[in-house]
């Protein structure tokens, strides 16, 4: 039996961005490939514009579903300030894949708090590898902002211990039967994300 590697993936963003769906697809793919997997999130009031994080742990045998502080191998940040918020959870030398989109909450827009100055530059100063993707722009160009999800998964695909095509096929399979046109779009979004990462 081949040895399966351990991997801690932390996915973060805002309610409604597809964070949990992305984590679900990662976990399903890992499961299909024979990994043990656990996925957990705390998203009590996420649909109300709050912060969402999802922990995906894969390996030969996963015990705790929670990634220990500072032990994430990959951080997938669906919003740039959210990526910064969780950046200290990434181990030194880890990977941060970040959607450079800025989503300003009412407390910032209303003047109670400031949005961080150049969060991308701050991410790049954390001693990790940073892949920056304008996933919102790519998704908008393709015609559906819900495609952010597939762009982000494409951008992190090369860092995952999955054979080529496994993750992409899992995404496409979600739409193939009922919405084949969305399957095509998601494949394009995935490819665009992969292209940025290379």
């Amino acid at each position, binding site marked *: 039996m081949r040895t399966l590697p351990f991997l801690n993936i932390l996915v973060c963003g*805002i*309610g409604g961005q597809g964070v949990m769906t992305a984590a*679900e697809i990662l*976990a*399903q793919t890992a*499961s299909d490939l024979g990994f*043990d*997997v*656990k*996925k*957990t*999130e*705390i*998203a*009590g*009031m*996420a*649909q*109300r*514009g*709050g*912060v969402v994080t999802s922990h995906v742990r894969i390996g030969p045998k*996963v*015990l*705790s*579903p*929670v990634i*220990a*502080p*500072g032990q994430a191998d990959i951080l997938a940040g669906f919003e740039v*300030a*959210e990526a*910064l*918020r969780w*950046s*200290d959870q990434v*181990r*030194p030398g880890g990977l941060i894949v970040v959607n450079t989109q*800025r*989503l*300003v*909450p*009412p*407390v*910032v*827009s*209303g*003047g*109670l*708090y*400031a*949005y*961080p100055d150049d969060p991308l530059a*701050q991410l790049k100063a*954390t*001693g990790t590898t940073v892949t920056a993707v304008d996933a919102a722009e790519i998704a*908008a160009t393709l015609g559906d*902002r819900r495609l952010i999800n597939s762009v982000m998964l494409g951008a992190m695909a090369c860092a995952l211990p999955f054979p080529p095509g496994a993750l992409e096929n899992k995404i496409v399979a979600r739409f193939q039967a009922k919405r084949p046109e969305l399957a095509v779009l998601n494949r394009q979004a995935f490819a665009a994300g992969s292209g940025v990462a290379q």
Partner: protein
Amino acid sequence: MTMVAETMTAKSGSGARRLLSGDEAIARAVWESGTRVAAGYPGTPATEILESLAQYSGLHTEWSVNEKVALEVALGASMAGARAFCAMKHVGLNVASDPLMTMTLTGVIGGLVIAVADDVGQSSSQNEQDSRYWGRFAHVPVLEPADSQEAYAMTKRAFELSEQFETLVILRLTTRVCHVKALVTPGERVERRVPGFTINPARWVMVPANAKKRVPLQLERERKLAVFGESFDLTIDEPGDDRRAGFVVSGPAYLHLREAFPNAPLIKLGLSYPLPLERIRALAATVDKLVVVEETEPLIEGELRAAGLTVYGKDILPRIGELTADIVGPAIRRLIGEPEPAAPPARGPAPSVFPRPPTLCAACPHIGVFHTLFAMRRKVVIMGDIGCYTLGAGHPWHALDSCISMGAAMGMALGIDKAGGEGDAKKAVLAVMGDSTFLHMGMQGLLNIVYNRGNVTALILDNRTTGMTGGQNHPGTGHEIHGLAAPQVDFAKLCEALGVKPERIKVVNPYDLNGLFRTIRDEIKVPEPSVVITNQPCTLIGEFVRREAHQVLDDKCTGCGSCMDLGCPAISVRERAEKHTADGEAFEATYTQIDARACTGCTMCVAACNHGAIQPIANTAAAGSCC
């Protein structure tokens, strides 16, 4: 863990493994167990158990109006010989505790399992409490799974235990069991015969003469369960080479502990009440120190001390929140004198990022209510309740003064009214709650206001769903748990039946800010019970109709910021600039913009703008992004 998996595979044949949350795994096991009746009330993190169960056929699944009713429905089914199931969050079992404390005397016929989910870490609850107390209080067994596969296996065994000992069984979950997805190997449903109810007053009519005879039986059952627990196979002894510390552990804390100490000997409690004292004594005899790792209260720890064992527990571990590996690890290492592994090089200070608190959705009908209440803030005391509208306590409305328990706003409002406080003499008292909460436990409070001649204005925010838990049906929605049509309660008629005068019951459109303000202002002036019911649906349900998006016309916007005070998340600041009044006084102008993708055309901001600067986007195709 491995043992559990093997047991299940042997039982259920060659089922393919599936990625299921704890909630989904329990639903699957409930269905496979041949359960005929399942009831509950939504509550994070347990909501998805019944939602998932509703997708299976062959059983009656219902949203009950509250947890007490749900448990009584389950008890009735059990009395008829059917397997029955109940799901609720921790505070729900407080509500259901009245039948719980007596049905433990009657016992059950068909297996009856209560899944109760503790929100350890308090991600979305008003308190953090330990439902394992109910096992001790009611003298009933408590099972504690650690993950989805165990939740599945223990649910199935819980039904067997329930029938074997004729007792209800509590399945104690935590957020980290309910909402973690892990691999489960499911089986198939086994149908069971339901014999029907047998009249037996000595068993079911709990008048004192009958109930007194049941108390010794209840205690005898508890003693037998303790003996059973000594050989229960879902309580697992895991030997280990490291004898410096041995552990007694339950629930998901087991996984965190194992991660931190892979080689320590331990007993993982499947049945965590009654405790298998002899097994624990045997472990204690072989290790230097015995440590109890349990989340929240020191229940096991206290019982082991009472049994004469020397144990460590909450003296070295936190009593609040989850016991993750990074918390358990250092605490235990300090206890056994093991140095901490070398810390990774310091990363500098943690990044400083603004908070992103949850807020009401764009076009949420509650926005109009709290904007209005903010406008009369100094003249009202606002008793609040549990639901999305609790967010009315937050920025920018600050228009909700309490949140305690389901339906509490009514009683508390009457209390404030009757206290007659000097500082409240010129204030009106309001009670604010949603439709589902009103039906859960609020209507009794309104009846009480009427009966006791209170001067309270009750606001019932009817958005036709149980919003905060993700949109579940209730008797006010016209649909049942499967989405099928159901009799729909008429809130105005219900309030009238409770004794509120018909002329004191007003149904208003919360998007009509002026109308809403006038209605509430008029009703709080009347010195008798009155009810204002808002009538627009939650934006997240199918009934909600999206209308044309609006925009701020830059040439008309004066920067007054009035629309920002509404608190709609679709409105944001485009530009701030220093301006001067005609008198030369400096002020900061706040020019705004509307996110056309988020705007649904509810028009509340149109009413909030005194300058006609907010108008529909004529050509929606041209609507662009603006954040």
